[in-house]
């Protein structure tokens, strides 16, 4: 899969600076609903100006964490600091935090203008200032001329932009976005991703976004946290988390990964050698293994880091090489995904960019193929 983080020219990386003061601090926060632990002892630092993504499946606790930041839920234990202030007991209507809701939650009885002005009106700002700021917001989200429309007279993309304008107009210290692009169709989503990032950079407001869409998180976020069952599985920049997953869950959740089981056989300065316990093959990595020799580990290899070619007659599996039969080919236009069945019955996925302009593939169904990869592509994960 193609992963391109939207370029952030000159963006600093405050999370690498031990001196930097975190803007939002989530400290050992736990939230239970009855017997289920929605958020389990989560600690997370987010820095000023970040576009941070909380990524996870449904029930991973990402939305609960966001709602605690907004003030709709109270943590059972732990603290939430915003710009140094403990906000645990601050009700939502007094927090310098605004939220863009998944369903947008636009007020159906108000016009676009009234929706955007709502927050400023609640603050009792003078009419003239409200008018100017609403106009500036309409300009920012390119909705000039739609002032008098009601939400039901707008398209999905327009509603999304009204929701964004309404949550930004108060210039919050922190903007929370709950699946901001979830309701948009694919093309609009891609375009809106860029718009959101450029608006965020223009205003310099810290964004925390919840999403289940890994592509969305990878392309937009400065950093992301993968959540699973209420805990943080991994936190890092999209590239760090994608290229260096620390667990099988993260490797499989972010992108696609072929996961094998094996035992560490040798470790040395050049990396680790792992013997497969599933079939007669070895995996060579160029990083030090997380466990001592003899330990059981997982090995993850991403489909796009594998090469596929026709196997030579009598060719056998070896180190970082597997032999199998093509069972399925998915044509995505920009790349192919081959499903290769190994003799032991396991299927792996191998992708191949569509470099040429072919309607007939050199490799086709039922071909015997060799799949190979470089040691750097072998990711060794603790069991």
């Amino acid at each position, binding site marked *: 899969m193609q992963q391109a983080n939207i370029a952030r020219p000159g963006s600093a990386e405050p999370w690498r600076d031990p001196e930097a003061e975190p803007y939002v601090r989530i400290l050992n926060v736990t939230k239970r609903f009855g017997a289920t632990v929605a958020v389990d002892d989560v600690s997370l630092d987010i820095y000023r100006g970040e576009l941070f993504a909380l990524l996870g499946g449904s029930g991973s606790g990402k939305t609960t964490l966001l709602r605690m930041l*907004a003030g*709709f839920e109270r943590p059972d234990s732990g603290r939430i600091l915003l710009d140094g202030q403990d906000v645990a007991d601050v009700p*939502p209507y007094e927090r310098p935090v605004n939220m863009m*809701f998944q369903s947008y*939650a636009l007020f159906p*009885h108000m016009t676009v203008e009234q929706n955007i002005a*709502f927050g400023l009106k*609640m603050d009792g700002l003078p009419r003239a200032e409200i008018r100017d700021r609403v106009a500036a917001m309409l300009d920012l989200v390119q909705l000039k001329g739609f002032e008098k429309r009601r939400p039901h007279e707008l398209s999905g993309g327009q509603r999304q932009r009204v929701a964004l304008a309404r949550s930004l107009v108060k210039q919050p210290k922190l903007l929370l976005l709950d699946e901001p692009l979830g309701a948009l169709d694919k093309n609009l989503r891609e375009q809106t991703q860029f718009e959101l990032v450029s608006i965020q950079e223009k205003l310099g407001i810290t964004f925390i976004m919840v999403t289940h869409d890994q592509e969305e998180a990878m392309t937009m976020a400065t950093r992301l946290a993968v959540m699973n069952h209420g805990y943080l599985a991994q936190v890092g920049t999209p590239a760090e988390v994608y290229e260096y997953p620390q667990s099988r869950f993260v490797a499989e959740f972010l992108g696609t990964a072929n996961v094998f089981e094996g035992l560490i056989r040798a470790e040395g300065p050049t990396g680790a050698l792992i013997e497969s316990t599933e079939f007669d093959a070895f995996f060579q990595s160029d990083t030090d293994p997380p466990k001592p020799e003899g330990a059981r580990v997982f090995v993850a290899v991403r489909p796009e880091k594998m090469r596929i070619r026709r196997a030579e007659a009598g060719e056998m599996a070896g180190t970082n090489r597997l032999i199998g039969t093509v069972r399925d080919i998915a044509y995505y236009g920009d790349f192919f995904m081959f499903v290769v069945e190994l003799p032991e019955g396991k299927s792996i996925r191998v992708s191949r960019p569509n470099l040429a302009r072919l309607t007939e593939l050199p490799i086709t169904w039922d071909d015997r193929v060799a799949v190979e990869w470089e040691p750097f592509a072998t990711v060794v994960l603790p069991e």
Partner: protein
Amino acid sequence: MRLRLPSGRTLVLALPFLWLGLFFLAPFLIVAKIALSEGALGIPPYAPLLRWTDEGVLTIVLNLGNLATLVSDSFYIEAYLRSLRVAAISGVLCLLIGYPMAYAIARAPEHRRNLLLMLVVLPFWTSFLLRVMAWIGLLADNGVVNNLLLGLGLVSQPVALLYTDFALYAGIVYCYLPFMVLPLYATLSKLDPVLLEAAADLGARPWRAFLTVTLPLSLPGIIAGFMLVFIPAVGEFVIPELLGGPGAQLIGRVLWTEFFQNRDWPMASALAVVLLLLLVLPIAWFQHVQGKGAR
């Protein structure tokens, strides 16, 4: 020429119109006709509109006297105004009591809502007349309320409750409250709670969120509920007759008197026609507002 049979759709649509024509429009036209007739001694106690004169000419005799009396005699005008006032006050009282009820039901856990709604509707399982009679037993001088007050030593003499405006309003509000609660519940339960979260998020305290979001969005329910209470309450006869004092000369009672005691059918009919017109106007307005809301 081909014979065109009405389609099934037309038939289905025609049925309610036929019903309304037969049982609403036709009786109304008869009542309107009587209203324009002159009273007469006989059966029926009014003169026909169409008459043959001795010369054999068909003449129509319209008597506008009854309508003129209605708008000129302060007795009738006051009865109308009193009816409208009582109905309006009842509507407001039902709203004040019904809104919190409907709100609480709409916010109750889902499995409990049906039970609560059933409790609201439960009184309908008993006869309307019986329920009004029961209030006599509650409010009479030797009724439940007075016995309780006397027993607790709060009063030394029975308090006059029955045959007062209090009893009148208690009866009307009690009987018509479900008509307020149900449409309010219908709109309030449709209200997405996330809108209130959005309001809070944008800085609205709970009370302001209610005023700026919940209240305007429940306006269709408020209007529907108010109309459902107001319209029948204007013409209400039983409750003022059984619970109200002698001063509660509402239009329903006046109509009854004209019809059954004075046997003045034309006058009673004129009263009914004007009452209907008084009610059709707010209904038409309500329909207009509903239509706008639905758009």
